[in-house]
């Protein structure tokens, strides 16, 4: 990380940890909202139906897998992008 001192790196690391907690909570919230919308639609009862619970569970599983796959692609693409920028300069 281009010429940061040790103290600066430590400070940075702490912020990164905070960022990760935040990212993680945001991922969790996105998952709840993104699965609640398509899966929960029946308000004749106040408890989730078996169908709704199943839909939520499958929705989480599929979105979790999709997030993992997209994260891999993201890592590859941004590595390629940085390399291309390095050559461009």
């Amino acid at each position: 990380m281009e010429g940061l001192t040790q103290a600066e790196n430590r400070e940075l690391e702490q912020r990164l940890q905070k960022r990760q907690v935040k990212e993680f909570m945001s991922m969790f919230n996105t998952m709840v909202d993104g699965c609640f919308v398509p899966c929960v639609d029946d308000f004749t009862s106040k408890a989730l139906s078996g169908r709704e619970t199943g839909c939520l569970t499958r929705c989480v599983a599929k979105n979790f897998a999709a997030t993992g796959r997209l994260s891999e692609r993201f890592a590859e693409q941004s590595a390629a992008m940085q390399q291309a920028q390095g050559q461009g300069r």
Partner: protein
Amino acid sequence: MSFFGMGRQQPTSAEKIAAVEQEMKLMASMHNRMIQMCTKKCLPTDYREGDLNKGESVCLDRCAAKFFEAHTVVSTALEKESQNRGGPAAGGGFGFGG
């Protein structure tokens, strides 16, 4: 209050305040998202009357209960997925559904 890692022995004032504040942000976000979700699910958008009618009120109550329950279901499902495939949450709970 468990997972905002006060792992060390003596948290400083700033850390304690940050932890409580974080907990509150969490609740505020859940509150806001519940309102957003459930008004969308339960209120028709033609707005012919300004009062909540009976059907809408009951729908809101049930939607609130289901939104909380959905947090638990999602939390459990996400934990299971993380353990299976070793995702970012492999280490512990999600603060819900514990």
